């Protein structure tokens, strides 16, 4: 597995897409830091971009990489290597190279400009962590979808739909539910719904850093416990881990059973 991981990783890190992804974050971060007058505003825009772009690239690259290297995978399958080793190795190679591009692209400008007081080292570390988590989650999901669908067009379509659903539609439905059932106590339901969407979870981890004053204005006891201490961040991070574990586990099961 390590060998396959290494091979995929170095193969991908040399590809022009990784470079473009890295340069994208580099340009965006430099641009935001350079142009906005206060660093908290730059950080806010950056976190919005990360919440939108990392899932998208994770999804697209995951499917793209799987379909492109399908024949190579089939070649590997003919060799005496465990199937789990092949697929997990390839998945990790992909997601780690994407994470590296993301980390390098965001960190270099910040090292240049210094850690501004608006973020703080802890907040910045959490921000990087959520970015990496999102990459891991969405490349796993798209790998899974590609594994399930041999038809390339269909696979890409489903990947894009999943991304669109989780990043925009889900929140719309969420909001409609909350407004419609306004009269009922919805605290627990709202928190549970959040756990169902990794993008929402990541967003909440970031808003807990930046908008704690507004979040503390809410009266509900459940939220108060959730927002008021470190437990909010811990729960959200655990849920994110779960979001990585489930698709990876499904990849293992499906790859074992699939007839290539």
């Amino acid at each position: 597995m390590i060998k396959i991981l290494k091979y995929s990783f170095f193969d991908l890190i040399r590809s022009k897409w990784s470079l473009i992804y890295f340069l994208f974050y580099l340009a965006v971060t430099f641009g935001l830091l350079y142009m906005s007058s206060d660093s908290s505003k730059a950080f806010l825009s950056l976190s919005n971009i990360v919440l939108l772009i990392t899932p998208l690239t994770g999804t697209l690259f995951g499917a793209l990489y799987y379909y492109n290297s399908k024949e190579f995978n089939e070649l590997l399958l003919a060799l005496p290597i465990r199937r789990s080793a092949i697929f997990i190795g390839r998945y990790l190679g992909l997601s780690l190279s994407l994470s590296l591009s993301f980390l390098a692209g965001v960190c270099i400008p910040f090292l240049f400009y210094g850690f501004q007081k608006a973020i703080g080292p802890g907040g910045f570390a959490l921000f990087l962590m959520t970015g990496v988590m999102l990459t891991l989650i969405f490349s796993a999901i798209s790998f899974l979808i590609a594994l399930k669908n041999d038809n390339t067009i269909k696979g890409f379509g489903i990947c894009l739909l999943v991304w669109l659903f989780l990043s925009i539609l889900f929140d719309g439905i969420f909001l409609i539910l909350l407004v419609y059932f306004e009269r009922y106590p919805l605290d627990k339901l709202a928190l549970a719904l959040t756990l169902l969407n990794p993008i929402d979870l990541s967003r909440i981890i970031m808003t807990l850093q930046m908008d704690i004053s507004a979040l503390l204005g809410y009266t509900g006891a459940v939220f108060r416990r959730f927002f008021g201490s470190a437990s909010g961040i811990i729960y959200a991070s655990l849920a994110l881990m779960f979001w990585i574990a489930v698709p990876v586990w499904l990849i293992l099961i499906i790859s074992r059973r699939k007839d290539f």
Partner: protein
Amino acid sequence: MVLSCLLLISVAAGADTLSVSPDSRFSSIQDAVNHARSGDVIFVQHATYHEGNILIDKKLNLTGIEYPEIYPGDTAEGFVVIADSVVIRGFQISDVARSYLKDRAGIRINDCRHCLIENNRLIRTFFGIYLKNARGCIIRDNEIEGVPGDEASTGNAIHLWYSKDITVERNTARGHRDGIYLEFVENSHVENNFSENNIRYGLHFMFSNNDDYRYNTFRKNGAGVAVMYSRNIIMENNVFEQNRGSSSYGLLLKDILDGQIRFNHFIENTIGIYADGSNRILYEFNEFRENGWALKILGSCSDNTITQNNFTGNTFDVMTNSKTSMNTFTGNYWSHYSGYDLDRDGVGDVPYRPVRLFSYIVGNVPSSILLLRSFFVELLNYAEQITPAVTPAFLEDRSPRMKIIKP
């Protein structure tokens, strides 16, 4: 040295000096007060004195040496002053019992003029310093620390009632109901005080006109400052920070007229300023940074001018409950502003509408705060910005600044 200087001065003034300590002629403060004549100076040596309701009925200067400790006991107050021009300096008064019938205080001033209360420490007193019908008094450099309970069983650190021309400066108030409370107080100044962890307000004006407060810091109180039913209050150069909670404000304005709010800093409060029924107030050169809601201005407010303030990094800039706006917003800096400045005069060319649709939704469905900053919500906000349907279309800043304003 200081002591001898004071002695010389008092001797020069023709006044006697009395000394109180457990092993001298006067072993209790009340005893010395009873034997003193008007104008005398009483030095109280460092020791523990178990006496309460020390009645000061003539012009005296009471000075504690190294903070003599006074324990008034379960049913008494500390000092009760009923004469003019009394000085109380350098005492430590502890453990005035709480009462639901009587407002017991560490130092009480009743119906007198020109007193000076200076450099005292009041620890776990029910009320700290209590002025009733006083004129021209100065309260400064006192440290007042209580144990916070609930609102009904905790008193105010500095309580002024029906007084005039009072100066309250450089005091520290912690753990009381209100840090500094003014009711029917006129022409008074509150300056350089520090008010922290009080369960209700850091500073509270009720029915008090023509007062000012400057250079104070209010941190982590139930609400920083409440100004209610008052006129002509000048509020300048204060810091309101981290007053956070579900009904927490930096500054609460309720039915007030003709105030000025200038050069203040509102930092990390749940609501920076909450204004209800407040008219003809000038908000100028204030900084609102990283508050949940920088300014919540209800429909009952009119003729306020909000100009040259900096709004940076607040979750929501302005919130209102009305569709019309009778207040003027002009020339402020808004960090959420995304317009352009083609003619490079430092003023944005498109107006800024500080009220977000999502703040309305949060107002109606509080749990939707979980969706803060989600793309869907940003899309809604964006659509609302272009064609306002719910938010007040006229609440806008027509000349938003492009850069932070340096006052």
